């Protein structure tokens, strides 16, 4: 079946602009994760959704970052007033449940460049 999809694949934006990144998880997967992959920092956890529970936002680097998950499916990560340090590849992953026993399936990522 279809894997996790993300859009856009690439986004170039000017410093100070807002951006929205979209993630479509695998159908039936209740857990959804956002990670960021940047040079020098590796892969960092940002935010996690599980079903109808309140999201775990503990990895968000600042209040400029927010995310929503509508209808338990599609998720949007929003970055307000982008800064150059926000340039990174943003990865989305989904899994059947929130147990670590379930594999996380990753999307192809959105490469964000802030100029």
């Amino acid at each position, binding site marked *: 079946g279809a894997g996790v999809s993300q859009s856009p694949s690439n986004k170039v934006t000017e410093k100070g602009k807002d951006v929205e990144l979209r993630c479509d998880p695998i159908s039936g997967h209740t857990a959804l994760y956002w990670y960021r992959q940047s040079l020098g920092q590796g*892969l960092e956890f940002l935010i996690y959704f599980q079903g109808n529970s309140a999201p775990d936002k503990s990895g968000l680097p600042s209040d400029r970052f927010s995310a929503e998950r509508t209808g338990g499916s599609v998720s949007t990560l929003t970055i307000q007033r982008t800064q150059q340090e926000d340039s990174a590849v943003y*990865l989305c992953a989904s899994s059947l449940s929130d147990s670590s026993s379930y594999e996380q399936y*990753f999307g192809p990522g959105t490469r964000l460049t802030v100029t």
Partner: protein
Amino acid sequence: AQRVTQPEKLLSVFKGAPVELKCNYSYSGSPELFWYVQYSRQRLQLLLRHISRESIKGFTADLNKGETSFHLKKPFAQEEDSAMYYCALSRSGYSTLTFGKGTMLLVSP
């Protein structure tokens, strides 16, 4: 806070040579450890996890709680093993992953 350390940014070996990618962690509880791999122009994917105690593509990894290590090993490297390898940890009762910074493995013919 938990931490995963991969000391080598790059590991270069010849085909047929043994490979060991190092991973050390710090976490006060009982972690679950994973190895993820990203081949060129492909998605990040799970390679193996310590609870499965399995061998995937000839790779194995043993959790050593005394040394807080989870090194990835393969006795005979193949060119198709060239990729970026990430060690990752999840805390007891949580599914979110803490990743190391990754090791690029290059296998030359």
